[in-house]
């Protein structure tokens, strides 16, 4: 545990060094988006990697976080920092509700995956249809640039905020690796019947994991809104965010501490590289991205973390 936390601390220092190494906008943006993707991947990893519950609909919690962050500011004039706390809380509550419904009925495997996808889709349609979300047009956050409003003048502020969230997610993951709860969660993942036989309550264990996972996902959604100051139902609850979270975790290595970081970094390098090389031709960069994804799975079936472990 201590070693993991020292690693997280070292990681934070390295990132801080990188932030102030260059003030190029492209570089800072890249850094911010990698951290953001790491947060989503690590959030998914808590439930998917450590809990073995594959969600295809993690955008559900992302969208809840983003919309709560926006609605309480725009409609009720709440401070953005308070909104962030609220957004994380409501997303976690959403996780608890989803977990209570699905795990109580014992949904597993592909059934759980599909039901999460369906819930995200229901919320997407609702967000289009009801009034207070701004409907299909989306929700715009008025520009009020100041740190007190969580709208930083430069990327530095956002990166430091995101770094804090990512480190929190890493700390929780480290705790999962070494704590009693984490051991119970992994036991439920590996064999639910055996875990129950030795006195672990699979329902409560999985419920805890989905709440933690949803909280970080909600933080990711709230962060997205603060940075881009706009959200619409397709971005918030559409499949792209769910895919980004799960691909980062699986490519990096599920159930590991550093895998999601490795996955997010490699995927973003791949995306940036193909975009720079073939950006003028629509489609080419994504064809290569998709093909590389297949190749990574083909040659690194345990993700980057598993591949490194086998080599080293």
């Amino acid at each position, binding site marked *: 545990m201590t070693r993991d936390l020292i690693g997280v601390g070292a990681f934070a220092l390295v990132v801080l060094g990188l932030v102030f190494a260059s003030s190029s906008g492209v570089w800072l943006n890249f850094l911010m988006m990698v951290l953001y993707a790491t947060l989503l991947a690590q959030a998914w990893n808590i439930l998917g990697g450590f809990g073995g519950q594959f969600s295809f609909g993690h955008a559900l919690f992302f969208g809840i976080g983003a919309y709560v962050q926006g609605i309480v500011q725009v409609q009720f004039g709440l401070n953005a920092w308070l909104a962030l706390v609220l957004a994380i809380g409501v997303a976690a509550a959403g996780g608890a509700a989803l977990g209570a419904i699905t795990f109580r009925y014992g949904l597993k495997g592909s059934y759980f995956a599909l039901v999460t996808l369906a819930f995200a889709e229901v919320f997407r349609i609702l967000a289009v249809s009801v009034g207070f979300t701004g409907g299909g047009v989306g929700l715009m956050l008025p520009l009020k640039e100041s740190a007190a409003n969580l709208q930083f003048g430069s990327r530095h502020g956002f990166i430091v905020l995101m770094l804090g969230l990512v480190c929190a997610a890493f700390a929780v993951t480290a705790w999962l690796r070494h704590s009693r709860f984490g051991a119970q969660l992994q036991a439920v993942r590996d064999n639910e019947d055996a875990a129950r036989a030795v006195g672990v309550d699979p329902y409560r264990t999985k419920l805890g994991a989905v709440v933690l996972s949803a909280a970080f996902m909600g933080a990711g959604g709230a962060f997205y809104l603060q940075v881009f100051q706009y959200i619409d139902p397709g971005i918030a609850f559409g499949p792209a965010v769910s895919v980004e979270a799960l691909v980062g975790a699986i490519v990096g290595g599920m159930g590991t501490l550093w895998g999601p970081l490795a996955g997010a970094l490699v995927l973003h390098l791949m995306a940036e590289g193909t975009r720079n090389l073939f950006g003028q031709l*629509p489609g080419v960069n994504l064809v290569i991205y998709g093909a590389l994804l297949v190749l990574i799975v083909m040659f690194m079936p345990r993700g980057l973390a598993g591949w490194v472990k086998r080599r080293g």
Partner: protein
Amino acid sequence: MNFEILFPSVLNGLTTGAVYALVALGLTLIYGVLHIINFAHGASLMVALYAVYWLKQRFGIDPYLALPLVVPGMFALGYVLQRGVINRASHGKDENILLVTLGLSIVLENLALMVFKSDTRSIETAYTLTTVPIGPAFIALPKLVAFGGALVASALLLLVVTKTDLGRAIRAVAKEKQGAKLMGIDVDHVYAMSFGIGLACLGAAACFLLPAYYVNPQVGSGFVLVAFTIVVLGGMGSFAGALAGGLLIGVVESLCGLYLGESLGQIGIFVIFIAVLLFRPQGLFGAKA
């Protein structure tokens, strides 16, 4: 709500549902029998739609006459994809199959974007605007043909799976992979055949769909979750269930659109899906596991 409004709405739902059923028939074999979550199902449908479109624009081949070309073509594509890519890359792990099919769908969608650009395209045939009166309602002829096509396709599939050696092999592999292997069944070949048949269904669906529909690189994504819904609703691996489930979902969507407004039309589908998964995961027509 009076009959004059309700009847056309139900009829319209039934014909839309028939197309959904065609898309779901392929998936019930791939997901319901072999338990492969095929994320590339929608993208494969899109490929088939472009094939039909291209045959019509380039060679003037009528979509219905394109059936003997597109169906075997999609079968071959499915066989090669499963045997050459999905099986080889997945190492038999569910999460890897998921990623591989996801990667494939990204590749296919963007290949289409490269070749055909992002424009939405449709074709014109002599019968596109022909309507047939049924009771107080009028129904587009292509939709009626699609309805008949769905019935024929599900009957054919049922025949293949219950009466042929291949069908027995598929069922054996689905039930007990190791046992089937020990009996001398080539499991990889059976998987690839099933995947091929699944995509062949999409080929048929595309031929029936295009005269009344359109195609763009993203067109498949709207069908994916609906198709999974139908497969689960009808009972995993049940062809009759997929047909009935497809028709039911079509009617639900149409009626929800009528009563709740256009934008909420699809919500009924997903609410039903969640309810079925929670309370009756074996499907409406499936036997209790």
